[in-house]
């Protein structure tokens, strides 16, 4: 079904209460993850800033920062979006509101919050993107099963005929995450050393490639036509991009361990796949940007602007990824702050902008929700500035470290040389925190129904009439 041209679907109901619950939870958890991240960054600039209590030691906060961003912020934002998008895309309700409440409770109060606390208390795994302890992982898998039960049946009930590309990404993202998560979280506990690292490498990439990316792309592919009221540029390119992505992403993992003992052929294969992935992303993003043509460089509609920018970040971060997987570049920048810049461009640039776009888009369409255009306008610019400064800063830091590591200079010279970059990175917390605060303000202040007015302003009145009938949900 084409989201730009929805037929009457009276049975469709968006569960607005769940949209709102996950939306607010997402932003609150974003703040917590932000605090973890800022603290970690401050501890690098002023290592004696805190008193050395294990509860806020660098390593534990570092674990909570990334787990919070992935499972607290992004996952909640994705769920909020899915509660809106799945009914619109399929013309059917999600499986059950009750199940939704369970999923909400399980995800936030059994997975994320206890996960954070356990990590701070010293129960964790030293595995990237898999730091929550095993007991939490069991509940994550359970919750992912529930999410599949909640969101997938509407697609299958339609007989999978004529699916819009967002639907493919949603189906793919949910199923693949369910497969990849146990691999990344359980296998390295059972398979030692280098062999386990091979699986870790896969998961490090799959967490981003099979969970975050498909759902972020589902949002972008959804919001662009829905907000511009024009179909996507090419359905063929959409599908090509989708299949290439799901073929290539999982094959990238080993590029996290180039020049390691893992067999050279696996490394080289992953490096080749990484290069191809860059090409694939060019196809995807070209298609997205061509769909945006005619909406102006900076669309007035904030959600549209968020997802458009997200697509551009996606392009840059993917090309960067293809380049840094190549052996000559990798041998220099691996282990350095360059990579930290790369991951922030991915998670804070690409994924967070998509998620923010997704949340604000569905928020506009809840008649009873407040919406503050001005605050969101500022949120956009502050976040944009924050990401750009932070990523260029860290990239520079990484190149500096790379140069010193290749020379024979004492180790501490590399630490000293990047201190100033670490300070600047810490300072980017100011625009970024302000941006997120305004994002929250934008969704909790302003007039009720102001979101629908914003749509009316950007796409005209008739659009509202098409949207309104689908919003007969519990709308509190």
């Amino acid at each position, binding site marked *: 079904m084409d989201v730009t041209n929805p037929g009457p679907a009276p049975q469709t109901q968006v569960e607005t209460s769940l949209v709102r619950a996950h939306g607010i939870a997402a932003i609150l958890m974003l703040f917590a993850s932000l605090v973890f991240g800022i603290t970690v960054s401050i501890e690098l600039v002023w290592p004696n800033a805190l008193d*050395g209590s294990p509860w806020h030691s660098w*390593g534990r906060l570092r674990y909570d920062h990334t787990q919070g961003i992935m499972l607290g912020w992004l996952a909640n934002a994705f769920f909020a979006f899915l509660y809106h998008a799945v009914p619109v895309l399929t013309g059917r309700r999600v499986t059950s509101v009750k199940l939704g409440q369970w999923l909400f409770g399980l995800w936030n109060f059994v997975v994320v919050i206890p996960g954070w606390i356990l990590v701070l208390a010293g129960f*964790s795994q030293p595995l990237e993107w898999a730091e929550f302890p095993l007991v939490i992982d069991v509940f994550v898998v359970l919750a992912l099963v529930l999410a599949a039960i909640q969101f997938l049946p509407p697609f299958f009930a339609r007989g999978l005929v004529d699916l819009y590309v967002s639907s493919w990404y949603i189906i793919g993202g949910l199923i*693949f995450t369910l497969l990849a998560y146990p691999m990344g979280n359980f296998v*390295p506990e059972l398979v030692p050393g280098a062999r386990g690292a091979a699986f870790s490498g896969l998961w490090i990439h799959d967490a981003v490639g099979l969970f975050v990316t498909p759902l972020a792309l589902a949002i972008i592919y959804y919001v662009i036509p829905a907000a511009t009221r024009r179909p996507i540029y090419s359905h063929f390119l959409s599908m090509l991009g989708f299949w290439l992505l799901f073929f290539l992403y999982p094959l990238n993992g080993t590029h996290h361990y180039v020049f390691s003992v893992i067999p050279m052929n696996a490394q080289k294969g992953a490096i080749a796949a990484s290069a191809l992935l860059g090409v694939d992303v060019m196809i995807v993003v070209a298609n997205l940007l061509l769909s945006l043509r005619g909406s102006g460089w900076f669309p007035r509609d904030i959600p549209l602007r968020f997802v458009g920018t997200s697509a551009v970040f996606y392009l840059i971060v993917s090309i960067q990824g293809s380049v840094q997987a190549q052996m000559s570049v990798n041998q220099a920048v691996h282990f350095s702050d360059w990579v930290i810049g790369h991951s922030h461009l991915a998670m804070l640039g690409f994924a967070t902008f998509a998620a923010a776009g997704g949340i604000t888009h569905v928020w506009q369409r809840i008649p009873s929700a407040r919406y503050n255009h001005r605050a969101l306008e500022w949120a956009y610019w502050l976040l944009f500035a924050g990401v750009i400064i932070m990523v260029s800063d860290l990239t520079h830091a990484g190149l500096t470290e790379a140069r010193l590591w290749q020379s024979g200079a004492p180790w501490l010279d590399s630490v000293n040389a990047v201190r100033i970059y670490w300070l600047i990175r810490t300072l980017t917390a100011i625009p970024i925190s302000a941006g997120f605060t305004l994002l929250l303000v934008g969704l909790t202040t302003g007039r009720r129904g102001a979101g629908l007015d914003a749509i009316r302003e950007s796409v005209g009145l008739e659009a509202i009439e098409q949207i309104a009938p689908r919003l007969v949900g519990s709308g509190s």
Partner: protein
Amino acid sequence: MNRFLRTSYLVACVAGVGFFVLSVLILGVWPGRVLEEETRRMSPEHPLKLTASEQRGRAIYSKEGCAYCHTQQIRFLKSDVIRFGAPTLAWETQFDYPHLWGTRRIGPDLSREGGVHSPDWHFSHLYSPRSIVPESVMPAYPTMFNGAPDRPTQEARDVLAYIESLGRARELAGPEGEARMQAASHQMDDMQVASPVLNASPAKARRTGTYSVIRYHLIGQTTHADRGLNVYNRHCAGCHGSKREGDGPGAKGLLPRPANLTEHDYSRERFSFVLWNGVAGTAMPAWRDLSKEDLDALADFLAPAPSTRRVRPPGVPRMMELGRSVYAAHCAQCHGVSGEGDGSAARELAMLPSNFHDIAPVNSAILRAIRNGVEGTPMAPWTAKLTDAEIIAVALVIERREWE
């Protein structure tokens, strides 16, 4: 048509899952088989597992996120090998559940950290990294101690045990082990398994080592002196103190204490040796990663100005005789017949006895060493065995450096 679509979507779904399975097979399972086989061929027959204490240390290392600042994976790259030593092989991590390879280096790689520093160095470093490495950004872990770096809890002892185990398996494999690894490596076309030194840490103290004498420049070249002061403050002041009296903020937890540099004259040779090799058996690290210019500047900075060179006290013949006989009876087996630090027992000691031709302590320091011993070293107090006259006499011998 509808039915056709339906089956083609089904095919697509199966294909999608197929991609994933494929990726796991070719990037997870297959490399795993290769690595397992390689481990079997390269590993010693009875590889050493971690002790209970080392395991506990490893768990602490895991939960504190040490691996997010320190890798344990030396890549097959010249820049890595020169800095850290031989590249990490699969069999070396065969008991690592889960692996601690890491993907970020804020601090140095620790794959071969065992034996690089002394236990008191590690305790002081864990307790308060900046007390002995002023520019470090490593977090402090004071809760692993009972209020002082020399009062570690079991936790700190376990972490130390784990650190000491890093790289041990490879060290124990010895030359035969290296030869076996060389023969069994499948990466030989692309990469070198061996490296000239197993552990290339520039800080690892050695008992012997070649070194070139550090040039002494003319004192008074101010730029040079500034540079020396700067290097000293960055690297040495934490232990030796800003006044060079051996009382820096990091000195408290160390045994032996950092040398009081104002109480000793060091020969150029000794000074060069110490900077290049550290003092094995003590917390004094080696500084092989400092540039030649920095080492020169340091040497200039620390060398006593000619005007302050001490004059030897006059030798009273009867005292010298007494002193020589005491020395021959009690000191020569360690410090050597003529004070070269090469006595017959020296080889068995954890640290080498002072060579008095290279190190000239002031009289008060000599007397203190004989009366109180040097805590944390094999140098014991002698007041129980020697009379005060004998002590003063033997001190005179050492100060005058006249053994016959």
